[in-house]
């Protein structure tokens, strides 16, 4: 079975190559069906391999099995989390391709295969990153998924905003990737190894009884910078809303649903395999670093999410808030917190992709994603409205959705003070979505008025007057576009309710983790109550916002926070440098002992 691991990236990549070679003269449905077939084959492969992942599948590509404990080859790891991520990536890719089936605008000149080929390359990069057990190989696939994501984000070149968003995305993420490469070079210089487990051995041997030194700390900070840029942690997050607001909807589903989460997965994998030994970083310092960043990310993401009226930007900020929550869970370094993060990521992927899919329908139907100008206009889209509202409740943590279960398990593991962040961030992001649902799909409350006088900062990103992605505005919602969000939402529900599923996920994550303990994962009374609390808070906040808009309008202190999201890529790069320094400062006590 381990022989099949390299095929997880290779199948979609070959599919993309063949599509580009032959896609020029293929009719569009054939090209798209071929894309779906390649994505589905990969998904099936990941799902077939999953039951064999205990103990973890290990493959040395090219048959370079270690002799005398040493190898020159590349190792791939097929454990529960890596195969689970590959399966999630592939299923979501399939959903995105199905969503774009036949209705998504294609570039001129009849390249029918180009869009599905780019999506398959994206899938291949993400699958390769998920199963990588070699740090440099992980970097290669990290770069592959980045390069494709930049092109996909700027896909609609006729809009200046799309090009601008793709440019900030590309500059900030490339810089993060170079930092990561520098970190890998430092680790290679110290240990002469690239396989993650062998680097850890080398670090332990070099450190002896002294613990980590400045080189280990710097390598940790640099590698983490690359991964945290990808996962949009504060202060590396600025690229994400600019990119997500302009990327085509099927691409947003993948960016928000799994690519950002792969950054968190990378942090978990790299810390657990490379830096968790005596030669790595002490647990207390890693926890401090990740939890501080996680709390900041959750808070900034949730507050910014609440004050958006551009629906896709609003969803993008809610992704930032939730990444903060995942980072906290990964950062407390406990088995059951890891389980919580895994379940939360699974549930969140379904819910967030469903929300983006609904936003895409609004864009293609009305040519705008502005909450204010859409007020009451989508009343007759009952199915889409219901999906959007239920997804909003699930985002707030309504039991028995997978998001609720992941949130409850994480809360139990992280302890009372951090639980406040979980309840607040999920309530606020859920409330923002519910507010949009109430206004757009039900027409509740007074129609929000444009302010008189000069244009304010926030009105520049209102989302009014966007180009629809379909060739012309939709009159009727195509069946595929309506079905995909409902199926995704049902999948998020299944994560929470299918008996035994949560236990399986928890067991697989604990087995792959480094804590050596197994925790049982299930619904608890406290968890359900906290989930209900955040859901009720979300509903209450949304109701107040809709009926009394004046009460919850942006206070003065929130405006500077909004202005930081300036769209100036120089600002974003400056913040990236500050973030790297912040990481170094937070982890500094590791080398001072």
């Amino acid at each position: 079975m381990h022989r099949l691991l390299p095929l997880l990236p290779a199948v979609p990549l070959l599919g993309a190559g063949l599509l580009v070679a032959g896609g020029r003269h293929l009719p569009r449905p054939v090209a798209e069906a071929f894309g779906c077939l390649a994505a589905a084959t990969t998904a099936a492969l990941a799902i077939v391999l999953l039951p064999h992942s205990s103990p973890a599948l290990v493959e040395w590509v090219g048959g370079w099995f270690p002799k005398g404990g040493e190898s020159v080859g590349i190792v791939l790891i097929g454990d529960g989390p890596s195969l689970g991520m590959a399966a999630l990536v592939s299923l979501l890719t399939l959903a995105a391709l199905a969503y774009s089936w036949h209705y998504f605008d294609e570039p001129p000149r009849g390249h029918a295969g180009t869009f599905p080929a780019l999506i398959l390359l994206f899938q291949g990069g993400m699958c390769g990153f998920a199963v990588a057990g070699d740090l440099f190989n992980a970097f290669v696939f990290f770069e592959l998924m980045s390069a494709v994501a930049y092109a996909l984000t700027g896909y609609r070149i006729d809009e200046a905003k799309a090009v601008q968003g793709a440019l900030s995305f590309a500059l900030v993420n490339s810089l993060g990737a170079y930092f990561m490469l520098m970190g890998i070079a430092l680790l290679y210089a110290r240990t002469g190894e690239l396989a993650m487990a062998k680097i850890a051995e080398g670090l332990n041997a070099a450190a002896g009884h002294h613990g980590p030194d400045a080189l280990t700390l710097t390598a940790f900070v640099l590698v983490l910078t690359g991964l945290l840029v990808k996962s949009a942690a504060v202060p590396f997050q600025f690229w994400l809303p600019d990119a997500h607001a302009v990327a085509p909807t099927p691409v947003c589903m993948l960016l928000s649903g799994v690519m950002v989460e792969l950054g968190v997965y990378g942090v978990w994998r790299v810390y657990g395999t490379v830096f968790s030994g005596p030669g790595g970083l002490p647990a207390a310092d890693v926890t401090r670093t990740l939890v501080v960043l996680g709390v900041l990310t959750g808070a900034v993401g949730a507050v910014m999410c609440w004050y958006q009226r551009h629906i896709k930007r609003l969803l993008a900020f809610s992704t930032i808030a939730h990444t903060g929550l995942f980072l906290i869970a990964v950062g407390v370094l406990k088995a059951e917190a890891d389980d919580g993060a895994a379940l939360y990521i699974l549930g969140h992927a379904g819910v967030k992709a469903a929300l983006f899919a609904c936003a895409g329908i609004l864009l293609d139907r009305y040519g705008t994603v502005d909450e204010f100008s859409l007020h009451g206009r989508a009343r007759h889209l009952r199915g889409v409205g219901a999906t959007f509202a239920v997804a909003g409740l699930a985002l707030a943590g309504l039991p028995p959705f997978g998001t609720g279960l992941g949130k409850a398990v994480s809360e139990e593991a992280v302890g009372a003070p951090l639980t406040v962040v979980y309840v607040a961030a999920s309530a606020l992001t859920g409330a923002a979505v519910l507010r949009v649902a109430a206004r757009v799909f039900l027409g509740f409350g007074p129609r929000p008025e444009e302010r008189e006088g000069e244009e304010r900062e926030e009105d520049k990103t209102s989302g009014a007057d966007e180009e629809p992605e379909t060739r012309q505005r939709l009159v009727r919602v195509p069946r595929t576009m309506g079905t995909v969000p409902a199926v995704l939402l049902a999948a998020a529900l299944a994560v929470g309710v299918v008996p035994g599923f949560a236990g399986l996920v928890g067991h697989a994550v604990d087995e792959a983790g480094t804590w050596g303990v197994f925790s049982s994962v299930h619904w608890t009374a406290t968890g359900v109550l906290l989930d209900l609390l955040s859901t009720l808070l979300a509903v209450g906040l949304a109701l107040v916002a809709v009926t009394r808009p004046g009460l919850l309008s942006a206070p003065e202190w929130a405006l500077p926070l909004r202005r930081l999201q300036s769209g100036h890529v120089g600002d974003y790069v400056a913040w990236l440098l500050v973030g790297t320094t912040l990481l170094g400062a937070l982890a500094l006590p590791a080398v001072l002992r």
Partner: protein
Amino acid sequence: MNPRARLWLVVLGGGGLAALLVAACLRLPAFGGPWHPYGDRAVRAALARHIANTIASVNFDQRAFDTMGEMTILFAAVLGCVVLLRQARDEHRDPPEPCEVAAPVRRYALVVLPIALVTGLYVIAHGQLSPGGGFQGGVVAATALHLMYLGADYAALERIRPVEAFEIGDALSASAYLVLGFAGVLAGGAFLANTLLPYGTFNTLSSGGTVPLLNAAIGMEVASAVVVLLARFLDQAVEIEEGSGS
């Protein structure tokens, strides 16, 4: 943010980063030491498979999976450029005017073009024997074609490099690399396993098993990719004009 505040942030962040990097560099192993754990193992593995150029052995055998990823990054970047640099709605194409080239430049370009092209192909073909290989030779071969642009004009260049054919060649050679990987699995071995062909005689063109084949696939892929990439940028500079045309 005003430029002043941005400058302060850069100073703060850059200062911290510089301090980290300096501290790390002071702990690097000293230059020129005898300890090369990976190098020693890689040379041994290369010689065992009759590959004279160890770097080719690392690229196309020991870490051929990384090369697959890198090749795909180039392939994806080119595909991305084809998408992003397409003719926008508010642009039109103007066929470029023919132009006069100074006679010495013209003679030089036409003489050097075939030499440069053969050099590129030579560098690709000898990848497993001497420094160079598919990546380097591919770039040389692709740039050789562009001497036609210097020696004649854009229309002449377009005649000798039909972009559509090169786009298909790019995709086919990328697929060929992947198919060679799959062949290993189908033969009952590992993905990208170099066990399908005999290793041959050391230091000859046919030595090294599948290394020459993977190397050739990369050479074709890089040459086609560079041609397509330059074509897209040249199109933007030479042919595609703003305004919806007359």
